[in-house]
């Protein structure tokens, strides 16, 4: 090879191998020394236990008791953003606190309530009493606020136990009645116009003594039950497609806000629907669970 060719060849080779900046495809650079080697989870899981409201992280190893709650709290709900908690004790108005125990509001005329839960907007509290839905907070769409028209004529022992509203205004509720010699226990879903059938019904086991209800953040999946029974219902918009699961021993259930397993409470133990090995054992009676 003649020397006069070497340098142009070398320059060409260096040119095609010149460095260019790396474009991150995934998570980018990583330095092991900067890794904190632990995960700090915020307080997201709410448990009403022994009349108090507790906040737990999702590993259950960091517990915080809310202060400034009414004594003997029986019902409580935490919003999807995990920054507002509503709690209620018999005979007292609902108190709304933030996660630092600072009272944000006392909801008037709520000494008697059947159920309440947070709307997916994280700011509006949906309250049920005597089959009537009322809202506390910013206005949201609600298909119907008076649910008492769902009972058949001549039915007795009528009761709407729980109700909530999802982001498109659909009202989801549980109602029970006695008619023509039988007890009925149902889920009712009142949908906005254009969402398919305006009213969907799913029969439940008559002995399912419903005292609580939760929906997932998308508003498509309902869990409801009571201290001794548990039922879970999945429905799909525009199609009457209920799937009913009956978990007899489970007392409370809470939907995961992300891809984690859902929360179950039974035999005084809180754990996940998939086995992570985390348990929280309650020492007092649990009356509400939310995540």
């Amino acid at each position, binding site marked *: *090879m003649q*020397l006069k060719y*070497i340098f142009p*060849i*070398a320059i060409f*080779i*260096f040119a*095609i*191998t010149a*460095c*260019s*900046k*790396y474009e*991150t*495809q*995934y*998570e*980018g*650079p*990583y*330095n*092991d020394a900067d*890794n*904190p*080697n*632990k*995960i700090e989870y915020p307080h997201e899981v709410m448990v009403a236990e022994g009349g108090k409201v507790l906040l737990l992280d999702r*590993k259950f190893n960091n517990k915080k008791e809310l202060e400034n709650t009414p004594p003997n709290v029986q019902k409580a709900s935490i919003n999807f953003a995990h920054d507002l908690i509503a709690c209620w004790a018999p005979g007292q108005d609902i108190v709304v606190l933030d996660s630092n125990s600072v009272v944000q509001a006392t909801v008037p005329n709520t000494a008697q309530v059947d159920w309440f839960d947070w709307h997916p907007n994280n700011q509006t509290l949906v309250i049920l009493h005597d089959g009537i839905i009322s809202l506390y907070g910013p206005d949201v769409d609600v298909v119907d606020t008076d649910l008492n028209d769902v009972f058949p004529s001549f039915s007795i022992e009528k009761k709407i136990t729980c109700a909530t509203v999802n982001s498109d205004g659909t009202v989801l509720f549980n109602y029970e009645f006695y008619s023509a010699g039988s007890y009925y226990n149902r889920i009712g879903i009142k949908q906005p116009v254009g969402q398919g059938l305006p009213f969907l019904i799913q029969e439940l086991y008559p002995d399912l003594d419903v005292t609580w209800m939760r929906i997932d953040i998308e508003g498509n999946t309902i869990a409801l039950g009571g201290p001794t029974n548990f039922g879970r219902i999945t429905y799909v918009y525009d199609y009457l497609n209920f799937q009913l699961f009956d978990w007899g021993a489970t007392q409370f259930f809470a939907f*995961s806000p*992300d*891809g*984690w397993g859902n929360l179950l409470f039974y035999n005084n133990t809180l754990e996940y629907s998939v*086995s*992570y*090995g*985390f348990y929280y054992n309650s020492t007092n009676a649990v009356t509400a669970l939310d995540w």
Partner: protein
Amino acid sequence: MLAATALSAQAPGYVGKRIYLKADAHLSVSPGPTANNRGRTYYYGEEEASGDFALDTRFNLHAGMAYTRMNAITASVGYLKTGMSADAYTPSLLSSSPLFNSLDHHELFYNLKGIPVAIGHQWFVAKKGAIAPFGAYSMVSLQATFLKGDIIDKRTNDSVNGEPTTHARLGTNPKFTYWSAGFEFGRNAMFKDKLLVNYACFFNVPLQLGMVDRLLDDGDASDYPKYNQDDFEENAFFRMVLHGYFGFRIGVGLFVK
């Protein structure tokens, strides 16, 4: 005069030049990813794997000294940068007990930086008119390359859905020393009695043959962090085997003395 001629014929060095210094570059066709994930193999074959042509390169400062008319010793130090992918596993930070020993899987891309240091011996070919350190030669060398890896990209596959990207430390010390033997055939050309131009072809073979056994052993991913360290070292070893297994050297320098 006869004695003077005889002495001159025995003295090392061409036209009195015995020592040379040069800067050179090793160039070889890269079979794997190069630094910053360029070249023939992209990260796990994903994201527009292109099969681009690339070269493995290393740059050296090189000194040689003739100690007889046909022999010279050399020493060099250099710099290289390339890329490689590797795997690592860590126990999930969600695992609260050994009963739930789920592992997070990490796919890593490293930029490997190395300082190659070598000593060698050159034999100059008399029948081709060479006189050390000028002319055609063959060379053997012993090389140690001190490698350090920097992770420039990572993809973690959490064993638990919803687990954030935070995970346990990999526990690796991404350093490895690669030992190899080099064989080279080339020529030192001289211009104006001082300027040196060098071109050569070379091949390198690894000396740590025990690493081959380790490469063939998949290891136990749950044996953390030993598995991660082993995987780094094995991949670094294999990458270096392919880095400069055969190629060309081009250099310029001076005959200084």
